[in-house]
């Protein structure tokens, strides 16, 4: 294990310090643009506040639209992070090392935005605190509030714990910068890399990994409950919990891949993020795509086979009706594109994986949309079924949400290394041996047998 006392070769990880030390002008400008878009979103929100939720395109049957779609989508993406990183940590997948930090940041950043989207959707946002004053535990919305809060706390801690040694590194690296130094000093909690500290930290990380997984699973399960706990056609489904979790991880991985490619490009992280990482993540994405398709297929097949009239109205509106374009685009983006690209080793290049990921992100957003809107637009009673067109306010808030997410991400990378330095070091120092040890432990005791088999095969 690495210790910061043991002098780290700062030069070796120069690339990682660069964004902090010599922030690139282009990125600053880009952040400025993002902030401007966010401000535009804020302006939209002020307008919405001024005129009421009527400023959106929501209407009587279609009373949830972009905001809830974004909410589900963003919370879904948040699974990228913590869940994947926790699972990989638990599984001791060594290739995780340069990825975990990126994933965790996604989680934390995106959770805020998801939560904000739910606030956007409230008719009386200033009464949101009623949830805590007068909360009714029977309501899935309160389960949501609780589990999201828990997840936010847990994943913040989970992000922060492994960050401490790195902050200490930064503290030492930037000893000459007064404010920055002081900033890191506060947050490094006096980390000195002593074995005791390392032990505590490791225990902390392990505990958090264990804790975070059920919380993450619960978050999206509970979000699915918002829909499945109602009696509405194509919402009231038992499969929704796992379906949503699967979709969340699916979109999370895609988001992670996209962020990795982007950051690799702008921060020149090629030495850290190698094609192998993308290959592995690509395989993971492929698996999730297949799993997602399996869920979707069985969800729609059971609905179709039962042929319950109200259910079928929604079904047909998705399959052949008003929402068919969204639905089939979703299938194309979520299944056809990723499976076609990722099934072939040759196409699992960084570019290929990126294309598949972007496709999945778009597809998953559409998936949320096609789950929410068509059901609302086709209520049970013969009611004037509604048509929903988002207004520019909703588009503005959606754009604002996305750009604020990227902004937060870049802001983080502006102050903290986006790849865990100490974990890379740890990988070098401890991981290699550990892995070798572990692989050995998988295999039969005598090395001779192994060697002789190898020989046999080669001949």
């Amino acid at each position, binding site marked *: 294990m690495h210790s910061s006392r043991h002098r780290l070769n700062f030069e070796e990880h120069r690339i990682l310090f660069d964004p902090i030390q010599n922030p690139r002008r282009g990125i600053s400008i880009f952040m400025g643009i993002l902030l401007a878009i966010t401000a535009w979103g804020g302006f939209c929100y002020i307008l919405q506040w001024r005129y009421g939720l009527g400023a959106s395109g929501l209407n009587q049957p279609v009373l949830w639209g972009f905001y809830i779609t974004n909410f589900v989508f963003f919370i879904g993406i948040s699974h990228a992070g913590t869940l994947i990183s926790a699972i990989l940590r638990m599984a001791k997948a060594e290739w995780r090392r340069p990825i975990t930090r990126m994933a965790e940041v996604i989680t934390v950043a995106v959770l805020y935005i998801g939560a904000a989207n739910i606030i956007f959707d409230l008719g009386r946002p200033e009464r949101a605190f009623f949830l805590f004053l007068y909360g009714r535990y029977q309501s*899935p919305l309160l389960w949501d509030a609780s589990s999201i809060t828990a997840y936010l706390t847990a994943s913040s801690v989970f992000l922060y714990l492994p960050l401490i040694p790195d902050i200490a590194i930064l503290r030492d690296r930037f000893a000459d910068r007064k404010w920055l130094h002081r900033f890191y000093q506060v947050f490094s909690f006096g980390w000195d890399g002593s074995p005791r500290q390392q032990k505590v930290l490791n225990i902390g990380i392990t505990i958090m990994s264990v804790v975070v997984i059920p919380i993450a699973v619960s978050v999206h399960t509970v979000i699915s409950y918002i829909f499945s706990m109602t009696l509405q056609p194509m919402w009231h489904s038992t499969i929704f919990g796992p379906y949503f979790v699967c979709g969340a991880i699916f979109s999370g991985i895609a988001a992670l891949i996209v962020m990795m490619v982007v950051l690799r490009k702008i921060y020149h992280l090629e030495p850290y993020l190698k094609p192998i990482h993308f290959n592995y993540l690509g395989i993971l994405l492929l698996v999730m795509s297949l799993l997602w398709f399996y869920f979707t297929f069985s969800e729609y097949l059971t609905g179709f086979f039962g042929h319950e009239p109200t259910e079928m109205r929604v079904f047909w509106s998705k399959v052949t009706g008003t929402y068919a374009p969204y639905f089939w685009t979703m299938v194309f983006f979520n299944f056809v594109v990723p499976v076609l690209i990722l099934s072939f080793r040759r196409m699992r290049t960084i570019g290929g994986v990126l294309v598949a990921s972007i496709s999945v992100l778009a597809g998953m957003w559409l998936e949320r949309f096609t789950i929410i809107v068509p059901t609302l637009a086709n209520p049970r009673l013969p*009611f004037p079924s509604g048509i929903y067109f988002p207004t520019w306010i909703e588009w503005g808030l959606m754009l604002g949400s996305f750009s604020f997410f990227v902004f937060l991400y870049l802001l983080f990378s502006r102050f903290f290394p986006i790849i865990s330095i100490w974990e890379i070091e740890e990988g070098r120092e401890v991981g290699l041996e550990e892995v070798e040890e572990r692989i050995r432990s998988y295999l039969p005791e005598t090395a001779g047998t192994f060697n002789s088999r190898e020989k046999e095969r080669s001949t």
Partner: protein
Amino acid sequence: MALWGMVIDLDKCTACQACLIACKSENNVPFVGKQQADRGRIISWLEIISETEGEYPEVRTRFIPRPCLHCDNPPCVKVCPVYATYRNPEGIVAQIWERCIGCRFCMAACPYAAKYFNWHQYRIPESMEKGFNPDVYVRRWGVVEKCTFCSHRLLRARDRAAAEKREMRADEYVPACVEVCPSKAMYFGDLNDPDSVVSVLGRSPRAFHLLEDLGTEPKVTYLMEGERHALL
């Protein structure tokens, strides 16, 4: 304790929509104007649902007035995160406007689409505000509103009875829609009283409930159109 319920005899109902306007007038329900109406934001606690089957000349249209059905097992109540909507001991599914945070979960959960949202602060010309019913609070923007069985009338009827030191009679409390129905197709009363009109009619072989199979146990019973007579 009473359990308030309604019976609507579809064989007598003429789809005249008087109930609907009576409700708007009684409960200060705003009109939303052309632009909002085109976006599907008309608020109308009671609505006449129409359903047409067949092709000319073999056609059939059914009209069903749908107030809030005040389910005994209301799907909307379960999902409200702040107790803004709840089923009171007398069976009225109430909406407390000043508690509502406007999340619209209850609207999404209601299979009857009986809840409405104030998408804006609806304003009407000052002169028309004089026509507001002072007994009913004017809902503000961003909250969900719905039929309350005119519970403010219950409050006042009960208060009158208490002031006269007697029990309130069931017939002192009638919602505005029932009061004005020109063809007397709507009945209102205490379902706990086996001899009340609503209980008797509820046992009619013509009786049915909307979307009965959902198990929401609505307290608004409909009587089918047709030959067979109510038990009155």
